[in-house]
């Protein structure tokens, strides 16, 4: 069965330091991987995705993620954290057997990122 694991409930980082939010997945075939972010009192917003190609994917707000097939990981990274990055981050995977705009995503439990001044 397809699944996503986010092993950390919360990540704390000082402003200006690099941040990493971890994600591992389990899916048959080639995965379609996503990161979404939820700011307080807002809906989830798309950050970035990996479908194919370069293992390092760049997204919104200076975030990037690295796809590692051998480790089945898709960790989210940012070189220098901002206080405004504090939010809830969700990793997700889509079953590649679906197509035609059908995006049945399987989400992790989320990781709360707290960036301290």
């Amino acid at each position, binding site marked *: 069965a397809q699944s*996503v694991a986010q092993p950390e409930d919360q990540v704390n980082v000082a402003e200006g330091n690099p941040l990493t939010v971890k994600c591992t997945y389990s899916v048959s075939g080639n995965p*379609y991987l*996503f990161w*979404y972010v939820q700011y307080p*009192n*807002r*809906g*989830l*917003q*798309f950050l970035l*995705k990996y*479908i194919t190609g370069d293992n390092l994917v760049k997204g919104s707000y200076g975030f990037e993620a690295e796809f590692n097939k051998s480790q089945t990981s898709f960790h989210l990274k940012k070189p220098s954290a901002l206080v405004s990055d504090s939010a809830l981050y*969700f990793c*997700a995977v*889509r079953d590649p057997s679906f*197509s*035609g*705009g*059908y*995006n*049945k*995503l*399987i*989400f*992790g*439990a*989320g990781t709360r990122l707290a960036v301290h001044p």
Partner: protein
Amino acid sequence: EAGVTQFPSHSVIEKGQTVTLRCDPISGHDNLYWYRRVMGKEIKFLLHFVKESKQDESGMPNNRFLAERTGGTYSTLKVQPAELEDSGVYFCASSTPWGDTGELFFGEGSRLTVL
């Protein structure tokens, strides 16, 4: 352009009562999804509409949940009768009818509290 809107933002009801959640997707988005997050756990898929047709309702917990999308525009999710374990945040999302971009546009969610 308006985003996905959901109503109500928060609903508090007694066990056994009925609640109806509404979702207005982005105009032109044929795909509409309902997801739910319970007690800080994973966001779980409930069902998927293409226009007015249910394509996949494999995630619906039981027959106390009924989703409709009459006319292929807005959608409602009714819980009747509500149970304590139904408490959570219900998210609606929509996406364009073409391509495999994978991007879903989410509403802010409807928080349901069943007492």
